[in-house]
Each structure stands twice: as structure tokens, then as C-alpha cells.
């Protein structure tokens, strides 16, 4: 059927077409002007939620990076303080060795007494170090000087609590060392001699790896010696098994991923050399400890084990392989002997509960994947294996728990120097060795925190890049595409205008005479 083409019909069609062209042109101009793919909620509702989330995550990430900077102030300050303590102890050692030798005289003893006095004051200054008005060795009682001299004896006024800082969306870390560790007036310590971090298993959550620091979801690139290469997307993996399955499926068996034989990380086998690297500036391979190249056909990743928690199963701890089930230990404490049977324990929490219930006044703590026994007073205690299972040794708690008498040792040394008792001076020197060892362990612990901060910083910066990348994908316009679309929309609009002007100029009336 022929359509009656009336003027209003023509006008309706042409104006409609013009409006459509103009609307498209306007949309393209908005995109070109803002360089944003989305300029209104209606443009992409799903992306609106994603953009808000990415912006929120980026703001949080910035704050975590600020946290790291602030945490580093305390950790670095603690490092300097521990180094100063170590220097003071070195000076004390020189004095003790000098005055216990045959060349010591009563005159040199008198000089040494003054020197030790000065060193005590230096030590007090160091242990009362403040950062921005916070006493860093006071536990959580940060506005009170933790170490004060009272009647010739130094006492600790802080508490035993750690202060934690948030270093990521799922992780916090302790940044301080409560000062009671330097002063045996409150406790005796034993332990820390066995790494009890759990093994990496198929069921291990990827977010628990790296002592709880987690991983960066994304893609990795694998290349073997035959020139095969594979890009594997691990972003949807939740557990180690998921990640291994994704890798082995992608490589089709050409390169095989497994958990390493010592269960501390991942291992790859194939035709060497094997290279595993990041994809497009990602951080996935690094966070899984596999960003490396092997010389041969085996590539073993670094230690990415999770952190020990109370819920950690004993059976999952590599260093307890062959020691399970655990047996019995004996603790001598305050004149009593306690026999503790760990045979029913299946988790570290079970060990803690059993120990704490069995020995009054003592506590079992999990510190940085180690077990530490803490006596609630400065008296020594001993822990021995009570059966053939060698449980105390297996847990790294066999031996004598001694108070760290930093100032007590200095006071004893001073008294020995004043009396000229060379045997007492030697005893102080021996005790000094134990204290130096403790300080060394604390420096190691603090150094570990510095590395953790570096690691967290790297993860957060990678996360920042990834979030910005994802935000850009959701939000930013493709410049080339926008330029092309804009040009096309302009041409389309101009064509519409041209056609409209031509059509309106012609009608029958012009030809009637």
C-alpha cells in the first residue's frame, strides 16, 4: 500500500531522525568531553556499583598505605632502640670482661661502677623512647614512661599488650614490643625455637597465604623450555587446589603444578627452564611466591605458608610430622612439678587450653607461628620431655625459662664491681650473654616486621594499580573509539540536516503557474 506522504508525516519522520542523530551526537560529545564511558547512573547500572566500590577500595587502600608509613615509624624506631640496647650491652660486656680479668684493679673497678651507672641511664633513656609522644615500649599504656628507677631498682609501669595496625583489608600486624620482655620482674620466657606454621594444602585458602597477608587475584604467565606458553586466569580461585587445577587445566599437563614436597609453597615441573611471570603489571605470581625462572625442569616457589592460629591443626604443621600424636611434658615451676599430657590435642588451641589449665600462673602463647611459655613471675622454670615422644623438643619449648633481667643484671654487675667480686662479675657476664640473645631475637622479630611492612607495601601498591586499572576499564572511555564514534555521529547529523533542507525545498506548488 502506498503511504500518503504528507507534510506533517515528512516533518515527523525528519524531525525524529534529526533528534536521534542529535541525541547520539550529544552522547558522544559528553563521552569525548569527560573521557568517561559512564556519565549518568542510567548508562550502566552494574558499573555504577563497581565504580563506587573501586573508589571506596582505593580510598581504603590509600589509608592502608598511610598506615604502613605510620607503622614503619614505630618499627624503625624500635629497630634503632634495639640497636642502641645492643650497643649498651656491648659496652657492658667490655666492662664485665675487663673487670673479671686479672688486670682489673680496685681503681678500674671504681671507674667501671660509674660507667655502669651511666649505661643504666642510657638504657633507661633508650627504653623510654617516645615517638610523637608515645612510649614505644610501654605496651598499650603509651602515655606513661614504662621504665622508672625507684629506690635504685628499675620497675616497669607499662602493660604486656601488643598494638596492632591494619595493613590491608584482611590483615593486621603487631607493631610494638611491650617492654616487660626486657625486665624479668614480671615474667620468665621459654620457647620460640620451632617454626609451627601450617603446611600449604589443597584446602588452604589463598587469602590465608603469606602469614595471612593473602594473595593478589589475577593472571599468571607460564613458559617452558619448549617455547610453550600459557596465560592462566586464577582470579576465580579460592583455595590452593583451585589454583592448581586452573593451572594444570590450562597447561594440559605440559607444565604440572603441585604443592612443594616440603609443603611450604608451590612447585612446577615440566621441560626447563620454566619461567613464571606476571601478566600486564599484575602481582599474582609474586604473591603466590612463583615469580621466578628455574634452571632445570623444576621450579620451587618461596615459602608462602599461612600463620599459625589457635585453630591450626597439629597435623597440618610440617615440623610436627613424625611427632604426632604428641605425648607428655614435665614443667617444674615454683617448686612444683606438673605433668601435662598433650596426646588428646588436635589443634594449637587445644595445646594452649591444656597447658594453661594444667600449670597455674603460666601461659602458653602463639607468637609469630612459635609457641612461647610465659611464667607469671620472674622465677625460672624448666620444661623437659616426659616420654619417648620428645614433645617438648618437638614444640621448641624444651629447656629452662629464665627471666630477662636487663636492669637486674646491671644492678648485680654494679654491686659485684663495687665489692670487687670477680666471680659475681663473671656470672653477670654469663647472664649478659642470655640477654644479648634475647635482644638479638627481638631484633630478628622486629626485622621480620620490617620485611612484612615492605611486603604489605608492595601488595598494597599492586592492589592500587589493579584497582585503578579495573576502575579505568569500567569508567574510562576508549579514546580511539570515542573519536571515531564522535566523527561518525557528526557526519550522520550533518547528513540529516542536509537531507532535511533538501526535502523541505521541493513541492508541487513551486511548479504550478
Amino acid at each position, binding site marked *: 500500500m502506498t503511504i500518503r506522504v504528507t507534510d506533517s508525516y515528512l516533518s515527523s519522520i525528519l524531525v525524529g531522525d534529526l533528534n536521534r542523530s542529535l541525541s547520539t551526537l550529544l552522547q558522544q560529545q559528553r563521552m569525548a568531553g569527560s573521557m568517561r564511558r559512564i556519565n549518568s547512573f542510567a548508562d550502566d547500572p552494574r558499573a555504577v556499583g563497581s565504580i563506587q566500590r573501586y573508589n571506596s577500595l582505593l580510598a581504603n587502600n590509600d589509608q592502608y598505605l598511610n598506615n604502613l608509613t605510620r607503622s614503619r615509624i614505630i618499627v624503625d624506631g624500635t629497630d634503632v632502640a634495639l640497636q642502641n640496647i645492643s650497643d649498651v650491652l656491648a659496652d657492658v660486656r667490655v666492662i664485665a670482661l675487663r673487670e673479671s680479668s686479672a688486670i682489673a684493679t680496685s681503681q678500674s673497678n671504681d671507674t667501671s661502677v660509674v660507667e655502669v651507672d651511666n649505661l643504666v641511664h642510657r638504657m633507661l633513656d633508650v627504653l623510654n623512647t617516645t615517638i610523637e609522644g608515645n612510649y614505644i615500649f610501654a605496651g*598499650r599504656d603509651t602515655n606513661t614512661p614504662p621504665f622508672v628507677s625507684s629506690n635504685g631498682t628499675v620497675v616497669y609501669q607499662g602493660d604486656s599488650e601488643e598494638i596492632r595496625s591494619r595493613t590491608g583489608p584482611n590483615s593486621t600486624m603487631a607493631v610494638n614490643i611491650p617492654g616487660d620482655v626486657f625486665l624479668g620482674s614480671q615474667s620468665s620466657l621459654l620457647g620460640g625455637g620451632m617454626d609451627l606454621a601450617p603446611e600449604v594444602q589443597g584446602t588452604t585458602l589463598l587469602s590465608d597465604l603469606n602469614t595471612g597477608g593473602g594473595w593478589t587475584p589475577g593472571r599468571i604467565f607460564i613458559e617452558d623450555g619448549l617455547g610453550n606458553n600459557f596465560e592462566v586466569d586464577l582470579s576465580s580461585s579460592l583455595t590452593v587446589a583451585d589454583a592448581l587445577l586452573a593451572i594444570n587445566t590450562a597447561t594440559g599437563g605440559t607444565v604440572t603444578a603441585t604443592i612443594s614436597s616440603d609443603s611450604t609453597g608451590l612447585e612446577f615441573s615440566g621441560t626447563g627452564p620454566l619461567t613464571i611471570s606476571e601478566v600486564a603489571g599484575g602481582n599474582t605470581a609474586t604473591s603466590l611466591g612463583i615469580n621466578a625462572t628455574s634452571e632445570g625442569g623444576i621450579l620451587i616457589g618461596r615459602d608462602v605458608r599461612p600463620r599459625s592460629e589457635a585453630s591450626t591443626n597439629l597435623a597440618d604443621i610440617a615440623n610436627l610430622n613424625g611427632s604426632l600424636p604428641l605425648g607428655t611434658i614435665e614443667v617444674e615451676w615454683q617448686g612444683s612439678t606438673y605433668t601435662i599430657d598433650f596426646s588428646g590435642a588436635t589443634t594449637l588451641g587445644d595445646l594452649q587450653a591444656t597447658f594453661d589449665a594444667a600449670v597455674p600462673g603460666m601461659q602458653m602463647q602463639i607468637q609469630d607461628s612459635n609457641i612461647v611459655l610465659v611464667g607469671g613471675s620472674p622465677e625460672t622454670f624448666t620444661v623437659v620431655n616426659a616420654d619417648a615422644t620428645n614433645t617438648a623438643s618437638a614444640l621448641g619449648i624444651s629447656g629452662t625459662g629464665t627471666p630477662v633481667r636487663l636492669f637486674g643484671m646491671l644492678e648485680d654487675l654494679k654491686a659485684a664491681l663495687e665489692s670487687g667480686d670477680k666471680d659475681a662479675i663473671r656470672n653477670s657476664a654469663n647472664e649478659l650473654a642470655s640477654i644479648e640473645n634475647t635482644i638479638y631475637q627481638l631484633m630478628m622479630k622486629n626485622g621480620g616486621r620490617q620485611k612484612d611492612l615492605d611486603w604489605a607495601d608492595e601488595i598494597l601498591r599492586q592492589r592500587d594499580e589493579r584497582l585503578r586499572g579495573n576502575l579505568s576499564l569500567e569508567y574510562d572511555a576508549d579514546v580511539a573509539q570515542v573519536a571515531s564514534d564522535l566523527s561518525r555521529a557528526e557526519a550522520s547529523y550533518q547528513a540529516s540536516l542536509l537531507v532535511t533542507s533538501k526535502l523541505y525545498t521541493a513541492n508541487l506548488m513551486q511548479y504550478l503557474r
Partner: protein
Amino acid sequence: MPGLNSIMDTSLSALFAAQAGMATTGHNIANANTPGYSRQDVMYSARRPDILPYGALGRGVEVMGIRRIQDEFLLSNLRVQTSRLQSYTAVDSALYEVEAILGSVDNDHLGNAMNNFFNSWNALAQPPMNTTLKQDVLASAVSLVNDFHGVNESLNDLEANIEDNIQMEITNLNGLLTEVANMNEQIMAAEVNGEPANDLRDQRDLLITQISEIAEVSVLEREDGTKDLILAGRTMVTRDSVTLFQSTYRQTGNGYQMTVVTQGNMMEVNLSPGRLQGLLSSRDVQVRNVREQLDQVAAKLVSEVNALHTQGRTSTSSGLSFFTGDSMHTIDVNSAILADAGLIATGRTDAEGDNEIALAIANLSNVGLDGPGSEAVGDRYRALLIDVAANRRSFEFMVQNQQNVVASLETKMASVSGVSLDEEGANMVRYQNSYNAAAKVVSTVQEMYDALMNMI
């Protein structure tokens, strides 16, 4: 045998017919751009012939009437679709306002204020502790509360604007209904002799179409040419009598709200789609939905922050709530904390370095109070944004689709009822030729008369 006078009379009818055609063509051309105008057409019929012994002899042409070309089915459909378009447009406009109130895609005010609030807690929790940062927490909390109140006031303003528009549309609708009743009266009078009042009918149809933009209307045409209008199931126009609408305030679950009732019996009407119904829906569904979701966000924020803060203590306080209120407009910072930021608790003890509570509150930006996997305050707020965005998208899409439907129907209407200048030009030539030919016949008859006279 017909006489010359009879031939003259036949030619004269042709002249009149051509004149009528030319006049209608002129009328069509004159109204080519008149809104609502339907082109008109002259209906011709051959006059009844004279019956003579040798057959029926034609007596010329007769103008039977002038009709307007109109497709009632198309017009009715156009009105229904126009009603829907106006309804969707009203809701789309309201959602556009809601989007503006919430902010832009990359700068939603409340989302930023919440981020700042939680990050200020994060900074406060960060060792080495700096208690002066409690002022920052307080400032960010006040800013967040002000943002909630600001959004609440903006939504109040939006609702007030919508109600102003409802009032305006009711006034507009009443005016149109009254005009239709007046038109009915004029048409009834004009058509009493049986001739259709084409132009008046066009004007009335245009008014009814304008009414359909405000509310969907059913039309019932009576034999006397008048049209009854039925809105929301009620006959509002009967011949020349009209019932009007008015607004009133009635108590609802959400306080006193403007509703639409019929004048006189004050019966509340359940309007069909149209601009008026779209405005009511914007207020009662869209804006209310946003308000309820924001209330939930505020309530969750208050309950979760308070659940943690009441566990904390300072050297001079313990168990203090951080926020008061439980909705977007009642949320506020506890007046005691407002007066003294030192009462902000960072830990469960009064130790300066105890940051457990501050850490836990800062972590509410990541997870809910029930731990990993539970919904965080930000998640709930994000769900609101996505909901608003999805509604915006949905209504923008419906408006675009409906615009296409209406445009398509308008185009069809223009094809049927619109004036074509080409067509009118051709008609003009046709009527001119008819007129010329008829005049030639008259001239010839004149010559025949002259020949006859010369014979005398």
C-alpha cells in the same frame, strides 16, 4: 429532450462543486500546520437524473458534504500510548533528580562521606596514637551526618516539587475537561441540522489528546456528536456537564500526603497511566524506596558503630553511644561526644595505645558486624545506588521505547489526517480544470442561445 436552461443548470452545479472543492483545498492548505487539524475532503454525488423516454439524463453534480479524514482507532491508540509515555517520563524525571541528589557516578556524596568517616577511624587507630585525630573522627562524623540530613532535605524538596506539579496538573486537567464540555455544547449546537462541525471536532480531539497526556482517558461518543470522558473509572464529562478533580491531604502510613480526589464527594481516585499517575508513583514508589533504603543504611551505620563504641572506654567515660537516632533524618553524633571529642573511645581500656575498638570500627567499611561475608554498611549503600541506577536505566529505556511507539503512531496519523501540499496542489489543478470546463459549457450554451436568438 433537455432544454438549454437545464444544461446551464447542470454546468452551474459543476461550477459550484469545483468552487467547494477549491474552498476546501484552500482550507486544508491554510491549516496544514494547525495542531490537531484533520484534512477535509468534499463528498460529491451525481444529481438524480431526469427520466426521459429514451433514458435517464444526468442533471449535474451535488455536494453531499465535507468530511474530515480521521482514523479513530489510531487516535485512540495514540492517546493510550501517549498516556504511558507521559507516565514513564514523569518517573524518569524524578529518578534523574534522585540521581542528582545522590551525586555523580564518581562523586557520590554519601559514599565519600562514609569512606572519610571510616578512614578517619583507621587513621585514629594507627599507632603511634595521636589523640588529636579524634577531632578528625568527630569532624568526619559531623560531615557524614550533615550529608545524611542534606540528602533527606533534598528528597523532601523533591517530594514538595512533585506535589506542586501534581497540583499544577490537576488544575490543567480541570481546565481541559471544562473546555471539552464547552466544545460538546458548541458541537451539539452546530450539528443540530445534521452537518458535522469538523473544525470544532478537531479542536475537541486535540483537547482530549492533551488530557490523555495527563491521565489515560476513555471516550464515548454519543449520537448527538458529544463525547463523554471517563477517567479512572469515573465519567468526568457528560455532554456539557463536568466533574472536576482536586487535591487534598490525607493521613497515610508516611504522614499527611497529597492525594487526588473528585470534587464534591471527595472520593480518592486511582489514576490510570499519565503524567499525574507518574508523578504520584515517583513520590510514592521511587522516592519512598530511596528514602527507605537510605534509612536502612543510616540505621545499620548507627547500630554497628554503637555496638562497638559502647564496648569502649576512655579515662572519663565508658559505654557511650557514638551516634544517636536510627534513620537518615534522625541520625546525629552523640551530644556528649560533640561537646568533647576526647570521649571517643579507641579501645576497651583507657590505655592510650589501646586501639581495638577504633580498628574494629574502621573495619566496618569492609565487613559487617557479623564478620567475614556479612553485609557491610558500604555494601548496603552500594545496593541502593545500583537499585537507583537500574531504575533509571529501566525508565530511560521505557521512555525511549515509548517515544518510538508514539512517534510511529503520530507518523501514521500524519499520513492519514495530515495535509499534503502536493496533493492539495493537484486537487487545486483538478478543481480549476473542472471549473474551466464547466464555464466552457456555460459559454457554449450562451453561444447556442445567441444562435437561437439570431434565428428570430
